[in-house]
Structures are given as C-alpha cells and as structure tokens.
C-alpha cells in the first residue's frame, strides 16, 4: 500500500483549497506548513490568536523581539500591513466569523463533522483548551490536516469521536496522507485520492463508511 502524500504534500493540497485574499488561522504542526505552499498569484493573511494579523515567518535570531510571538509561543515577524490588537478583538475576529479558514490538526474527526483535538479525556490529564473551541465555533470554514491513522494504525476518521469534543459538526474537509475527504450530510466522501492510493485503502483505514468520489 502506498502511504500517499507526505506532510508537505498534504499542506500543499490544503493550500490549493484556500481562496486568494483569505484570512487564515493555522494550528500547530502540519497546518503550519501551509505557509510554504501558497499557490502562485494568491495571498493569504495569517491571524494569530494572541493578537496579530499579517504574521510573517520566524525571524533570524539576531532580529528576534521576545514580545513578538504566535499562539504556539514561537517567535515570528510582522509583515508590512500587519496590525496588533488585544485578545478580545482577536477573538471577535474568530467568534464573529471574520476569519475565512482555519486549518487544524486533530486526534479524531467524526463522519458528522465533530472534531476532538484538545483532550484525550484520560484520568489525571490536565485539561488545556486554549483557543481551540473558539476557533471551531467561529471560523467560517474548518479544514483538518492529519495522518489518516494514528501511529498504531487506529483510524482518526471515525463514526463517533471517543475523545471529548472540541466542537460538534464543524469540520468541512479533511486532508490526510491518503485522500481529501469531505464531510457531507451523508457522511465522509472521498473528494480526491492520493497518487497510488485506492478507494478501498481509504475505506479500510477509516472508522466509518466512506462514499466514493462523486
């Protein structure tokens, strides 16, 4: 079986689905790679929850400002045309539906668009939610980039999330190493297969029924 797309290819494929001029919030991990694959002729403006639009790439070490961080607490830069604002304004952008696309990593996504990406619910785990629940409820379009299965081969696309939800029915499209999968009223539907991957392989690695491409 082909393992399909690499992390970079998954990010590049997701970037293809983001329109020019979009305001975009990227989760930590593979979603951050999206910035490296903006299609020619398009421009995205990056929002970070802690209070900036127009976030740029990491700085050279000599040019670091220790007060200029992103939501993942990594040092970043501000591009020309950037703006700083406080947290209430930043989450007004999120909750008020002003951010066009949010690309998240996840632990599980269910066939009805439920997402679970903040807690395993394990006893003794320290709950830590950050802005995840605000993002999934507020941003216009929620994309997920994720390996199709866990490291131990368990499906991450499932019938019902077993982990505590971040938000119900919010995910519209999932970019995995095996396929692009849409969440539709009828459940998961493959929109596109990675090169060398068959529909049957996608179904075998998914914990819920999958519909073939239209």
């Amino acid at each position, binding site marked *: 079986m082909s393992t399909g797309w690499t992390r970079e290819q998954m990010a590049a494929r997701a970037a293809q689905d983001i329109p*020019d*001029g979009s*305001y975009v919030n990227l989760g930590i991990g593979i979603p951050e790679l999206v910035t490296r694959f903006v299609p020619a002729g398009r*421009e995205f*403006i990056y*929002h970070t929850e802690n209070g*900036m*639009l*127009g976030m740029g790439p990491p700085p050279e070490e000599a040019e670091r400002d220790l007060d200029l961080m992103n939501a993942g607490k990594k040092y970043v830069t*501000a*591009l*020309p*045309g*950037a*703006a*700083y*604002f406080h947290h*209430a*304004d930043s*989450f*007004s*952008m*999120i*909750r*008020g*539906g*002003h*951010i066009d696309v949010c690309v998240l990593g996840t632990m599980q996504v269910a066939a009805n668009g439920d997402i679970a990406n903040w807690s395993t619910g394990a006893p003794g785990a320290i709950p830590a939610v950050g802005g995840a629940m605000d993002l999934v409820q*507020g941003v216009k379009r929620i994309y997920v980039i994720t390996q199709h299965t866990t490291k131990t081969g368990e499906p991450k696309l499932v019938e019902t999330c077993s982990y505590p939800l971040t938000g119900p029915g919010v995910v519209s499209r999932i970019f995995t190493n095996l396929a692009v999968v849409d969440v539709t009223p009828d459940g998961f539907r493959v929109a596109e297969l990675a090169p060398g991957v068959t529909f049957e392989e996608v179904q075998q690695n998914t914990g819920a029924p999958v519909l073939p491409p239209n």
Partner: protein
Amino acid sequence: MIDKKYPSVAAAVADIPDGATVMIGGFGASGSPVELIHALIDHGATGLTVINNNTGNGEVGLAALIGNGQVSKMICSFPRSSQSKVFPALYREGRIELEVVPQGTLAERIRAAGAGIPAFYTPTTVGTILAEGKEQRDFNGRAYVLEPWLKADIALIKSEVADPLGNLTFNKTARNFCPLMCMAATTTIVQTKKFVARGGIDPEHVITPGIFVNRIVEVPDPVHEDTLIAEGRSYP
C-alpha cells in the same frame, strides 16, 4: 497582492440593494462619510434601514438621504438636534419608522454583532419605559435587560488613513462608532482621506484591522458636513 481599493464612491456603493440595512459612521457631523452618503443618494437604493447615532443635520449627508425618501427606518440614540429638520418632519407625518436605542447600548449591540455575541445583559434602561418588552434578569442582586446584537449589510465609514489591506486610522473624535460598525457589517465601505502603501501605518497604531474592511475609496479632500451646513448647501 490584496488591494481593496475601489476607483470611486459610485463604484463602491453601486451594488447596495433596496431594503439593505446600512450603518453610517459618525457622531453628528464628526466622522460623517458625506461623499459615500451622497453616492448612495445618486445610486438611489430605497427602503433602507439606517443605523447612526443621529438623523443628520441640514439638508446634506444623512439628512439628505432621509429627505430623498430612501430611508424607511432609523435606528439611533438621539434623533433630534438643533439643525435636524428633515427627519422630524417625516417622522411626524408617519413616513419613517424610528427605533431609539440608548447610545451605549447601541455601541455595544453593534460590537456584539461583530464579536459573535448574540446577546448580552446591560443595566441601561432598567426601570424606564425603554425597558418595556425587554427580558429582565438579576445578576448579583441587580437588575439588567437582555439586548441582542445589531448587524448590518453595509457600513459606510470615513477614515483618516487607509492602506490596501484595509487597515484604518481615524481623526480624533471622528472615530466614534466607526471601528464597531466596520466589525458588524457584511460589507464595509470606507472613504479615506489618505491612502498609503502597505507598511504606511505602524502596526501598533492601527485602529481598525483590515479584516473588517472590504472596499476603500480615496477621497483626498472630503467635505465636512458642518461646512456644507454653514454654507447653506443641500443635496442633490
């Protein structure tokens, strides 16, 4: 490269439909986007619901829009002033509807719309006739009323400086409702006195981030409503 600039006020307002809800920035004459309002008069959309703190002065700007019969309802905090004649006359004839909202509640309802907050509680109006019909509730032993968000299809805004991304600054108390209305409208249309390149506004000094702005028209020498009124002008 993103560039939200429009060629003219006429182009920027050309698709405002009949029946639209339109927020208009400004507090009295201060911050009133006169050129955009006059373009809307030329455009001719009717049956508008307009949200502004007031109802215009003299026979220019918002007062002229009302006088031209394009406004079927006003939502405002203070519909009269020493120089407002157009609205009072139409109102007394029953030809225009009025919803009076306390000024702070008006501001907060508009912000709530932009912030995705469908409703909030405020002490303002408790114990008055303006609280009639409103849901009331106690928190910590004090009474509050529930107020819903207030959204619009369009916002017409005047800024001092704008860049191609829609980042804005305002001049002094012309700021007033403008940053809130930019957040609360589906389509925010801005006339700006100065249009600068990206980086022309310090990111620390941006008042309205560009995400809240859709269209920008440069109007380098905007007329001021007070000046037009002092000159006895009317529009069209």
